[in-house]
Every structure is written in structure tokens, then in C-alpha cells.
């Protein structure tokens, strides 16, 4: 399983500060952070600890299998971000 960030994300990066395995990207230290539309969770690295979901001030993080209907596309979008990164 993995956690997933949805489209309401406001890029305040509270989640990246608490993730024990640094799988939320881009982190504020990265140059990419300034232009990214939102943050994404790497499903292959996430250890399901829920720390990010508890910390997010606006509830923009859900467990993949409990995504509300309107956000289901974000499971694939989070994963695709990391696939595209690997390729480039």
C-alpha cells in the first residue's frame, strides 16, 4: 500500500518534514520545488507510516485504497511522476 497526495495540495511541504524515508518529492531543497504544481509520493518507497497524512494541514493525503471518488486519478498521477523522473 502507499499514501497518495491529491490535487488540493498547497505546496507548503509540511509533509516532507515528517516523512521518515524522504519519498515525498520534490522537497523544498530541490530546485524543482519552485515550479512544481504539487507534491507527490513515491509508491515504491513509502512505508505507510501515515505521518504525512497526520501532518498535512488540509487533509490532502489519503491511503491509496481510501481515496475519495473525486481524487482517484491521483494514485496513478503520483506514481507517474516518479516513472517520468526515472526516464529523464
Amino acid at each position, binding site marked *: 500500500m502507499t499514501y497518495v497526495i*491529491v*490535487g*488540493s*495540495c*498547497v*505546496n*507548503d*511541504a509540511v509533509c516532507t518534514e515528517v516523512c521518515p524515508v524522504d519519498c515525498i518529492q520534490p522537497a*523544498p531543497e530541490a530546485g524543482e520545488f*519552485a515550479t*512544481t*504544481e*504539487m507534491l507527490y509520493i513515491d509508491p515504491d518507497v513509502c512505508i505507510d507510516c501515515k505521518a504525512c497524512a497526520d501532518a498535512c*494541514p*488540509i*487533509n*490532502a493525503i489519503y491511503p491509496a485504497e481510501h481515496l475519495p471518488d*473525486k481524487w482517484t*486519478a491521483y494514485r496513478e*498521477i503520483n506514481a*507517474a*511522476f516518479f516513472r*517520468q*523522473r526515472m526516464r*529523464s
Partner: protein
Amino acid sequence: MKGDDAGALRVAIVGSGPAALYTAAELVRVGGQDVQVNMIDRLPTIGGLVRAGVAPDHADRRQVIDVYEKLARSGGRFRFHGNVEVGRHVSHAELLAHHHAVIYAIGASGSRPLDVPGANLSGCHPSSEFVGWYNGHPDHADLPVSLDCERAVVIGNGNVALDVARILLKGDDALVSSDIAAHAREALATSRIREVCVLGRRGPAQAAFTHPELLELGDLEDLSVQVDPAELASVDWRSDDFASTLRKATLETYARSRGVPNARRLLLRFMVSPIEVLGRSRVEGLRLVRNRLVNTSEGRVTAVPGERSDVLQTGLVVHAIGYRGSPPQGLPFDAVSGVIPNRGGRMLDGPGGKPRAGQYVVGWIKRGPRGVIGSNKLCARETVRALMQDAAAGGLPVPVRGGESFSPLIHARQPDVVSYRGWKAVDRFERQRGQGVRPREKLTRVDDMLRVARSVA
């Protein structure tokens, strides 16, 4: 507020939007109880554009206000002075006289003007006013909005343009559970609008909107999102960019879809610019010109008007072409970039000029009207770092007046000042009025807010 303020670093923050709140929280994080913050806003409410800009059907995002309010207050030495306008009730010089540092977080609340003939016809609204209207900003609650036409046009291709288009087309059922202002909910319930055209002056690859907002349009009930496939045919996408990949796929899906019969329509059109708003006493149409794209020598893609023009019949035009700040008298302003001139948050006496001791900026008035809520966080860190460096280097002027004389001054100038408790009373009252149906039912008039705030004074 604990203790007296002897030895404390006294900081005034003008504004209470996300930039102000992040700044206050950051001051507490690095300075703890040694920092005392006076936060001043011209409205009785905290939140800035997170309250009055962020769309009512995105109200979950407003929760950042609660979180940062808590952090800002965690040092125990935070005061809110609402309903107080700097430049009207209290001057910049007076703030300086009472504080070691003054930080402007006043945002950019006006709209860039739409510079075409007819733009001031009734029925043509800048986004700052139209959004303020549906979000219940007291300045715009009485905007005369007429939704008595079949087609509305939104000019601009940013997220604000998509917000406006979505709110115009979202059915009553979906808005009932939002915190949209009651007057707007009622007006939209009897709206005759069946189609909204969103006009971008450049192509799909250059649009300023983000993918989450574009994708959300496709989820609206009883709505067809339409894109002319011909407009996508010759687009030069930057294929290495993740956001472009998503945007391309979603626009192609919209272009392929046959749409829902009899549904309302949202039309995304590209490479067109408005050249004239038509109508005698109010808006009746919009004349457009087709653009072509040209690469400039600096590597930018710009729109150049061509020969062909056409007219769209419409009774409502909203232009969402960007925001613009206007600082109070006595502060420097860079009219070209629309910001208070600064270097890393230190206010300068003019563009490229010298720093003004003890004076700082943060948020949209520092960077320009760009970026999401979270962008203001790193921005606040930078400004606070500059302030703390100046404090450590002995670079902050010693205030000539004691900290205890500030509140009496404010009370003398504005007897209707709203304290933090007053704002919380308004906040609670609005949430209760929501009755579990919606997150809150906003008060949209300052007088009504004051009545509620006084109940706890």
C-alpha cells in the same frame, strides 16, 4: 499576551493572509517568547485571500489558516488588530515608532486593468471583484452581478480564470455544501448561464493554469468541457516536463469527448485576445482577434494579433488577467513589477536602491501576484532570516515609543478595532450558521462582524 514587553523584539505585521501568518509562525519558531507580534488587517477577519480568494468549493484549503494561527500564537505574545487600515487609521511612521521592525504582507488585492475599449461597461468585472463577490469580501458584497444571459466569457488562462468558470457552471446542489456567500448562492441558483468560454491569449502549452484545476473541470456534473481538436494539432509541447505531459493528455481527452447532450458547456479557447467589449449601456458582446505565437529573442513565446476577428455574444465578462498591489502612502512602489522594491525581503527606498532599516516585505507584495499558498512559506523564511540577521547585527532602529502605548493608539484611532477574540467570535458564529450543511455561512458586512465581535469584547 504574557508579561511586559521589556527586552522583547517588537514586530508589526501588516496583513493577515498566508504570508503574514507564516511570518508570525516563523518569528515564533526562531525567536520564541522573545518576539512580540502585532498583526494588523484592514478587515476584521484573518486569512487574506485564503478566506476571500480560494474558491468556496475548495474550502478544505482554508484549514491552513487555523494551523498557522495556532503556530503564530504559540509564543504567547501575539496580538491581532482587525478592522484597522495602515495608511488610514495608523501611519507607517507610527508603526515604526512603536516597533523594532515592520513587515508588509498586504498582498495584491486589485486586478490588472483590462486595457480595451468598453472594459468599464456594466457586466464586465475584474476577477478581484467577482471573486470577492462570491466569496463575501465586504468590499465587493454589493457588486451588481447579472447572470441573466446564456453565455459568459472569462478572459485569462490562469487558475483564477478556471475558478471563476467552475463557480459559474457548478450546479446549485454542489454549491449548497460550499461556503459561498449567500447572495452569490442565491444569484447562481437562478442563473441562466449555459456556457462559459475561457479565453487564453497564448496556446495550451503556455497556459498558466495547473493540471489539478484543469482535471477537476472534467468531474463536474452535467457539464461538457470542450476543446477544439484543431487547437491542439500544432502545439509545441515541452515533452520533458511532467505537468505538460498531464496537461496534454487531459486536453486531448476533452477534445475527444463527445460531451453530454443538453449539458452546460465550458469551452476552452486558445490564441485569442479581446479587443473590445461591445454594448451600449451594458455588455452585449466581446470582439476577439486571433493571435499567432512568436518566439522572442529572449526565448519567450508571445502572442501577436493576426487579421481575423470575431464577435462572441455575451452578457457577462470576467477578466482574470492577474492581480496588482497598491501599498499605502509613504511606501516605495515599483509600478513596473507591481511590488514594494526589496532585496530578499528587505525593503528598499526604490528599485535597486538602499535598504530601509527595520522595514520588510513578504508574500505577494514582495514577489508579485504569483504562487500558491505554500509558496509564501519559504518566502516568509527568507524575510525572517533577513530580519533576524539585522537584529543580531544591531541594524534595527530602537523604537522611540514603548510597546504598551501601541494598543491605546489603535483604540483612539479606531474604536471598532477587532481583537483576536473578536475574530474568533466571528469565526465561531459563521461556522455555527453553517449548521453542518456547509463549513460556514460567511458574514459579508463589516457592521455585522463588529456586532458579533463586540459580544465578546
